[in-house]
């Protein structure tokens, strides 16, 4: 009779003991969780964190990088479990939705953000006038090209859309592969979608009109032409592009399988890792005839602090943000990442993305359009665009765009 309650107690103790072990913390040190969503810079952050911890003995930073980070973050927010510190993309509607729901710390005019370039902060300030993100670096996208191959075959960088298509035809005519498409990875497709939405048509007013119920994506001829352009380009890609993932395509481009690769500058660290000897550079994707060629810009690494009651953690997180946004550390980050910095006084040293970055600096650029999507629109844009590549059903795709843009029912 005595033994069973003892067993029960043991069981409960075991459970609660493990539980306590999971939450207990050394007094004196503050541990903050850094939910880091950019896979390309995990290694770099490990180094930066080690340096930070050496300089701030009272603080420990745990970098957490997971696959499916978007879903994980969403399920954690669903239960009010916001990370102490995280990276996010301020043009992403998921970020905007969560910000407006109060999950993130309001950083409007906060001294934490004082090192960041004011223009960039303004560009990501939400419609309610608030800002929840400290921008660290900027991204843009365009066409990577293999310099060695271009020189070997005497190819020129195209200035117009027609020249671009002619170039693709020429390479294909030589029996080589002009472009490699990572269509197996759905987000790379919505990345192309959002680029064309702003490059080839005035997507901004169109999305606003669709949202207001004043327009229908299915009736828009420019959208139709854009969808057809996405499909048209596939003839210059590898066979069965949906079978190639982002990682595989990056690797194939880095090892010289294709002449060009449409991707964001965030792929630079991965390309360098896959083939440190590759000689490559970038040029902007030309706009369709009659429109000026411009490039997209958006915040690539944005630091966001969880809106938490634990003041010690918030303070520690702020300290880490200040450290990362110091000119010296931001410079180190920019040099490895190959991205232009959003921090004042940081020099841009990467010649690979220089042609695009120059355009951003000359304001021949537009803001990443996806901040206008409806909540959840990001995920639907991924699946929807991949479905377009799969079945070439332009009508179904345009109907899906109505959802993505948030057309009232």
């Amino acid at each position, binding site marked *: 009779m005595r033994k069973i309650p003892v067993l029960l107690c043991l069981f409960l103790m*075991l*459970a609660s003991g493990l539980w306590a072990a999971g939450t207990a913390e050394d007094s004196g040190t503050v541990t903050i969780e850094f939910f880091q969503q950019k896979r390309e810079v995990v290694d770099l952050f490990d180094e930066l964190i080690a340096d930070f911890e050496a300089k701030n003995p009272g603080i420990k930073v745990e970098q957490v990088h997971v696959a499916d980070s978007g879903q994980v973050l969403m399920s954690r927010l669903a239960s009010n*479990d916001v990370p102490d510190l995280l990276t996010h993309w301020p043009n992403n509607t998921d970020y905007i939705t969560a910000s407006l729901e109060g999950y993130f710390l309001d950083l409007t005019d906060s001294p934490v953000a004082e090192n960041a370039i004011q223009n960039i902060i303004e560009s990501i300030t939400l419609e309610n006038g608030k800002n929840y993100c400290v921008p660290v670096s900027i991204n843009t996208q365009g066409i990577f090209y293999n310099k060695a191959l271009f020189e070997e075959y005497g190819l020129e960088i195209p200035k117009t859309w027609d020249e671009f298509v002619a170039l693709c035809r020429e390479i294909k005519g030589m029996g080589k592969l002009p472009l490699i498409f990572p269509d197996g990875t759905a987000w790379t497709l919505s990345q192309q979608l959002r680029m064309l939405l702003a490059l080839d048509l005035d997507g901004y007013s169109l999305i606003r009109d669709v949202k207001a119920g004043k327009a229908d994506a299915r009736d828009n001829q420019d959208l139709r032409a854009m969808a057809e352009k996405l499909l048209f380009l596939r003839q210059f890609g590898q066979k069965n592009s949906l079978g190639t993932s982002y990682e595989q395509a990056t690797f194939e481009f880095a090892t010289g399988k294709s002449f060009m690769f449409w991707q964001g500058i965030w792929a630079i660290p991965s390309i360098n890792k896959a083939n440190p000897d590759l000689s490559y550079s970038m040029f902007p994707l030309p706009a369709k005839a009659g429109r000026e060629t411009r490039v997209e810009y958006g915040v690539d690494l944005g630091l966001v602090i969880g809106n938490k009651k634990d003041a010690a953690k918030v303070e520690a997180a702020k300290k880490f943000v200040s450290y990362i946004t110091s000119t010296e550390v931001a410079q180190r980050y920019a040099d490895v990442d190959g991205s232009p910095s959003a921090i004042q006084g940081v020099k841009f040293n990467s010649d690979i993305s220089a042609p695009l970055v120059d355009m951003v600096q000359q304001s021949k650029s537009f803001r990443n359009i996806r901040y206008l999507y409806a909540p959840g629109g990001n995920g639907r844009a991924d699946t929807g665009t991949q479905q377009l590549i799969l079945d070439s059903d332009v009508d179904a795709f345009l109907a899906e765009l109505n959802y993505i843009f948030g057309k009232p029912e």
Partner: protein
Amino acid sequence: MRTQNSLYRIAIYAVLITGVLIILFPLYITLITSLKTPQESARSFFALPGTLYLDNFASVVTKAHYFTYFLNSIIVTVVSLTCEMIVVPLFAYAVSRNSNKKYYRIIYLLTIFGIFVPFQAVMLPTIKLLSRTNLLSITGLILMYVTYTFKKGAFLFVGFLQSVPRELEESAYMDGCTITQSYRRIVFPLLQPMIATMIVIDGLWIWNDFLLPLLVLNKNSMQWTLQLFQFQFKNQYSFDFNLAFASFLLSMLPMIILYIFMQRFIISGITRGAVKG
């Protein structure tokens, strides 16, 4: 007649061996690829490796905290099974010895009902609840496994116990034993084959499960199990598929070794559980 018979037999061997080759092919690819450098794979993909190149394994083990994940998997599996074997037979014993009472009939029906509910139906609110109660951790995962093995376990244990005659317990009572004593001395030993079966079935499930760790443990990389680690590893090192295959092999290895030594026990456990269920 004789030649026809041996023709049959040859055909049977041919089919069975083809099947074995299909089963072993992925393992062969995994093994040889993990032992090669990318250059060697590019030269001859299917050939055996020329030299034993072990750097892939070394980088998985050193770079990726392999042993932490291995240990986590062990802890999750062992603790879940231990807890299950403590609490579930107790429940089943109480229910099977009181099947004439309303309370026990209701709770038993409620449990059986759970078997029909797919996990995905309660997935979203469960995760929300675990998160609210600060249980997105190994502890929470273990509690989930005890809960989910309970449903089917209760069904199997109750079925088993109802077939065990009560005379022994009655006579133990005459000798002055309490319920707890007769459970410990008489009933629990009788349950051993059933417990062995459940350990195999639930152990295989818990060790290999991916969905629950994905939902519960994704928060903290130091708490990942081997299966979850695989999924993450795919993301980060997929440029180097030799490395990826090395990690696949390392995560299969514990089970393969266990299987080599305990295959009879494992197979008979699975069959017994299925026939009873």
